[in-house]
């Protein structure tokens, strides 16, 4: 643990104070851009900034070196104010080769800093990137941006050879040179990264030494070269006091599940089959076997779902996760889980669809699948986290609802949240909400046990094998009210169908009312859900600042909706529903509330830019009133 007071390295150049910086690091997927980005993020977080990140991987494991398909990017915004997105346009862009330049430069703001690894711009590289001539010489580049060419490879070699290390090692650590330079530029401390190198490469001292040398050389280059007239400084943000750490979405989700397991006094069974972008939850959870976590990598998603149900029947906290195509495969078994009325959590880390789609890209297009992707009337609750760190709370909430109602709960994350990161204020353990679970115990009063008798939440008793006298059989055929026996009785089927629906609908009585950011009525209400929270909130906030009567409602609960939602929608002249799909929430809102919601729909595998949302909002509201 460190305190937020960090000593800035002493630069002799002019330091300009700015409120925030958005920078993207882009290079070949072999260039270590993700590592670089993660380090910059952590360092900035440790410096007390608010941070938000957006990594963008190529679809291939290692696409051919130097090609556009192989470009790996990492964007981070750090700021002295609370921020909710990794930023739209870049203040600075670092590119390691021509492919990275041509695929990223359009996002750099006019006049932004463009740092290029000159050594990565050879004829061979132009060919690989399919560019005609050296883009670093293009007028449009030189005119539009503050281009700084750095022969990183050569400089790294030089730095490293000083320590008697080979150029081969050197080439592998030019990302640390770039890092050092970036650190200089933004007045970041080298310390956290020095510690990281120590931890990671401690066992290979020559590699560690090379990386340290490269890092310092990069910093020194910034300090020395005339190319940089000044560096920038972003002061610490005014965050709520507390201890923070940087959290990625999938990690937060995994930790949330572990926490939920502790909070409910249950060990955790996680049955899954690897799939992008959900696999990292497995990778994280399986590290925590000492928490009583059992991970089961099944032969497929069907097996994963069914094993989850089996574990739930046994009385364990049972969770499964996948992404679109895998969720489709789970549909039949999920219907059984719903019919058995057992508690479990099904996580969908959504990706670009349909079919295999765009596996490494983000999208919100599985909402209707979550609600309706099963045969018959098969209602289940659906909730969605709003940001990487929020995955933690949402996981706990999912398990809470599941156990209260005895029902599988669908948690809809997405690729953007899953791989993004932000500071997380570490909670004090005893402030976390306990989840109380009661299993019925021995039934010696001679009355037959009623496994489908219902409590005030319409949940049924979770009687688990091993309990004397409570032996019962569950199954996917319609069951008789209370007894749970197979029943073909027409009226019973109607009753049970309505009860299952009512059970989910009743959740609305217990969840919080929908909150609004802004006035409770006005010209426009922006309604969003899931990972678009940050972009929508930022856009609405800016429009409010510009004097527009616009508010924001971000839904965590998608089924059922908060009980005041309908009224809220009707309190605004217009409702805009921006989604990274073709209008799935919009369709639900229209149907439920008969409100003519307007959609703004983007399916490009990318999150919303704040600017495009502002533009949308502005087309739907009257010109601002002077305030």
């Amino acid at each position, binding site marked *: 643990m460190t305190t*937020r007071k960090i000593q800035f390295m002493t630069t002799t150049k002019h330091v300009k104070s700015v409120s925030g910086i958005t920078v993207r690091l882009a290079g070949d997927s072999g260039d270590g851009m993700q590592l670089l980005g993660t380090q910059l993020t952590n360092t900035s977080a440790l410096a007390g900034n608010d941070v938000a990140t957006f990594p963008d991987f190529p679809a291939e494991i290692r696409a051919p070196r130097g090609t556009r398909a192989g470009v790996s990017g990492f964007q981070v915004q750090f700021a002295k104010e609370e921020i909710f997105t990794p930023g739209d346009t870049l203040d600075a862009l670092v590119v390691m080769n021509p492919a990275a330049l041509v695929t990223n430069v359009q996002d750099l703001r006019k006049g932004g800093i463009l740092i290029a690894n000159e050594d990565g711009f050879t004829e061979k590289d132009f060919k690989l990137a399919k560019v005609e001539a050296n883009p670093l010489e293009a007028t449009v580049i030189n005119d539009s941006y503050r281009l700084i060419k750095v022969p990183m490879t050569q400089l790294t070699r030089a730095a490293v050879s000083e320590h008697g290390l080979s150029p081969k090692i050197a080439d592998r650590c030019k990302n640390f040179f770039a890092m050092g330079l970036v650190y200089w530029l933004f007045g970041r401390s080298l310390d956290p990264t020095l510690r990281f190198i120590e931890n990671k490469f401690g066992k290979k001292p020559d590699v560690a030494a090379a990386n340290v040398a490269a890092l310092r050389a990069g910093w020194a280059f910034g300090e020395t070269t005339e190319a940089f007239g000044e560096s920038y400084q972003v002061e610490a943000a005014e965050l709520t006091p507390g*201890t923070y750490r940087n959290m990625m979405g999938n990690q937060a989700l995994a930790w949330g599940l572990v926490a939920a397991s502790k909070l409910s006094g249950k060990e955790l069974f996680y049955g899954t089959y690897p799939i992008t972008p959900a696999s990292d939850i497995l990778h994280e959870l399986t590290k925590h076997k*000492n928490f009583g976590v059992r991970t089961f990598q099944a032969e497929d998603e069907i097996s994963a779902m*069914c094993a989850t149900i*089996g574990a739930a029947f046994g009385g364990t906290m049972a969770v499964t996760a996948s992404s679109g195509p895998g969720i489709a495969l789970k549909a039949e078994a999920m219907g059984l889980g719903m019919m058995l009325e057992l508690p479990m959590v099904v996580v969908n880390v959504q990706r670009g669809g349909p079919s295999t789609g765009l596996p490494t890209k983000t999208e919100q297009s599985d909402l209707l699948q979550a609600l309706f992707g099963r045969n018959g009337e098969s209602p289940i609750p659906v909730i969605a986290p709003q940001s990487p760190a929020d995955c933690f709370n949402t996981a706990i909430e999912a398990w809470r609802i599941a156990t209260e109602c005895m029902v599988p709960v669908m948690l809809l994350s997405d690729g953007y949240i899953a791989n993004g990161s932000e500071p997380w204020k570490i909670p004090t353990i005893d402030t976390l909400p306990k989840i109380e679970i009661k299993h019925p115990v021995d039934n010696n009063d001679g009355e037959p046990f009623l496994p489908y008798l219902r409590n005030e939440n319409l949940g049924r008793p979770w009687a688990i094998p091993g309990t004397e006298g409570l032996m019962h059989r569950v199954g996917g055929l319609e069951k008789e009210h209370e007894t749970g026996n197979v029943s073909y009785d027409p009226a019973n089927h109607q009753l049970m169908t309505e009860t299952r629906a009512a059970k989910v609908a009743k959740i609305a009585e217990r969840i919080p009312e929908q909150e609004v950011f802004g006035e409770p009525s006005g010209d426009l209400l922006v309604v969003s859900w899931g990972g678009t929270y940050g972009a929508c909130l930022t856009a609405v906030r800016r429009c409010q600042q510009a004097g527009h009567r616009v508010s924001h409602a971000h839904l965590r609960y998608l089924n059922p909706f908060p009980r005041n939602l309908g009224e809220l929608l009707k309190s605004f002249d217009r409702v805009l529903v921006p989604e990274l799909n073709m209008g799935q929430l919009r369709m639900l809102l229209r149907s439920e509330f008969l409100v003519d919601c307007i959609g703004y729909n983007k399916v490009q595998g990318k999150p919303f830019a704040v600017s495009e949302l502002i533009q949308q909002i502005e087309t739907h509201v009257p010109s601002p009133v002077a305030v």
Partner: protein
Amino acid sequence: MSLPVLKAADFASDQDVRWCPGCGDYSILAQMKKVLPELGVPREKIVFVSGIGCSSRFPYYMNTYGMHSIHGRAPTFATGLKSTRPDLMVWVITGDGDALSIGGNHFIHVLRRNLDINIVLFNNRIYGLTKGQYSPTSTEGQVTKSTPMGSIDHPLSPLSVALAAEATFVARSLDAHVKHLGAVLKRASEHKGTSLVEVYQNCNVFNDGAMAYAQEKKQRADNVVELEHGKPLVFGKNNEKAIRLVGTHLEIVERSEVPDDDLLIHDEKDPNPSIQMMLARMRYPEMPEPIGVLRDVDNVATYDEQINAQVELAKETRGEGDLDKLFHAGDTWVVD
């Protein structure tokens, strides 16, 4: 602590049994109810998990915990259950379509993982519940509702597939041979690891007599060889025939013509399943079909044992998980 002594009837649930009159399923149910009290496991510690099919209605008739799940997936529910609740005795009840058609993959995987459960596969070589389509064990040329010109699929042998997946307990019995069936079910229950028992089961409505050559007492002696560990494979009305291994082929011999020492001696404990695979491939009418335990190998780690051992080991070496420690590990910073 002495357990209450239970009788077969104590294992009957209050639900009406709803198989067709004359169905072979009744006999298997009866044997199960007879065997369970002998095991001394309390009813509440037993779970029956099934898929979908006539056979899969089995759990409803047992006064234990039970799950009638979805088609083909019973082994996967059992995996989640047994991995987290190794204290339970878990039986999987499945049919030839359930286990080998839609469920073939889970069948292989549960066997290779050697989860400590018992699988009873009711093989009637037909889809009963959906009223008479052919199944993966139907014979070539079989005429059914879905194969009016005869089946063109080459049938699967559940025992062969199981052995290829390195199953540790593989057996076969007959619904009509109730004593044998009871004994085999008991053996299965005693095995540590996945036990597979294939039971030839007569569907008297859609595939009546399909295995009469083995089921009918009169024909059985000539068409079935009862395996016994350490004993030669002899059969025939007067035990006059036997099996001999020649190179890598099995052949039928007259015992009068061959010295006993030349006969194949059954070794269910052989860790190398080669010969057991040959047994599994013995098919009527060319060969008598083996019943009894083909393989019973005990020293293979089970899945549930190992998944729990890793958790225990992790707890021992790293200490019982502590949320606070987890949250604060690595880089953190304080805002005040």
